[in-house]
């Protein structure tokens, strides 16, 4: 197994992620949230969905699933860890990424492609991308509104990696789909080996899906596996 893709009760994007990772050049294997040994994995992805029904808060129950001890171990070992959508919410709840995700500004479930600008290439999710590159990737969430108690220190840390923009990379109120603070769509941790984003790169990883803009993000993740194992 190269990449472990975690399945919680309620996860629904795991097969898309496995396929997207394969397109990006990595083997991936589904692991159940009760698995307590990811020893063979070089990286782990928490895919989207509604883990444990999103009861209490999104990700709040999932972060205590047995597999999360292994996810934390891998994060602490410097291995690549990625959370997509619900997976991002889980990593925030687990304290592995800064901030939290709350209900969208307009209280609507958003399911449409959005534009993202690559803010930093210093992360396992963006290392193969170019700073300033604009990607068109589907967003599919109700609690996608990123908040953090201290956005200035987050910005200063360089841990913001993706921001909502328009097709030209401009940041306007109308190009921020869900009201996220500073239009933040994706962040990384200080060590830059854990990353999360609300939009779904796996749903834009082949031209037949309408966009393959997400592939560069999955390729970044796969390239990070090779860097760590080298």
């Amino acid at each position: 197994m190269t990449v472990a893709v975690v399945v919680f009760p309620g996860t629904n994007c795991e097969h898309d992620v496995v396929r997207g990772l394969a397109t990006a050049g990595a083997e991936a294997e589904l692991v159940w949230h009760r698995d307590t040994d990811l020893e063979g994995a070089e990286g782990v992805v928490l895919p989207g969905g509604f883990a444990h029904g999103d009861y209490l808060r999104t990700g709040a129950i999932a972060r205590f699933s047995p597999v999360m001890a292994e996810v934390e171990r891998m994060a602490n070992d410097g291995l690549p860890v990625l959370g997509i959508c619900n997976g991002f919410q889980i990593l925030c709840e687990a304290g592995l990424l800064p901030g939290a995700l709350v209900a969208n500004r307009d209280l609507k479930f958003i399911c449409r492609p959005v534009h993202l600008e690559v803010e930093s290439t210093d992360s396992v999710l963006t290392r193969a991308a170019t700073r300033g590159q604009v990607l068109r990737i589907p967003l599919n969430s109700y609690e996608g509104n990123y908040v953090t108690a201290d956005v200035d220190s987050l910005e200063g840390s360089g841990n913001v990696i993706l921001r909502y923009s328009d097709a030209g990379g401009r940041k306007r109120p109308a190009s921020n789909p869900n009201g996220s603070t500073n239009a933040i769509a994706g962040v990384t941790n200080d060590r830059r080996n854990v990353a999360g984003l609300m939009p779904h790169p796996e749903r834009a990883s082949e031209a037949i899906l309408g966009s393959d803009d997400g592939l560069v993000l999955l390729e970044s993740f796969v390239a990070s596996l090779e860097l760590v194992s080298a």
Partner: protein
Amino acid sequence: MTHRFRVSVSRKPGLSDPEGTTTLKALQDLGFTDVSHVAFGRTIDVDLEAASGDDARLALEAMCQKLLANPVIESYTIEERP
């Protein structure tokens, strides 16, 4: 003995609360123009067995810190229920 509590969880001030903002606007539209603040939260009732009220409260505090609230964005209060 059984101790009965109610935990009230609310968003920390200054952080985005779209439900509160939207409901505030709706109330003002309905003519309740004196309303200046609406905030959403949740209440969670918890009953537990503990040797003393202090023990019970300590346990509740740990539950809030660990699971019932997200300390990154939420604050909480604990009160006893009759």
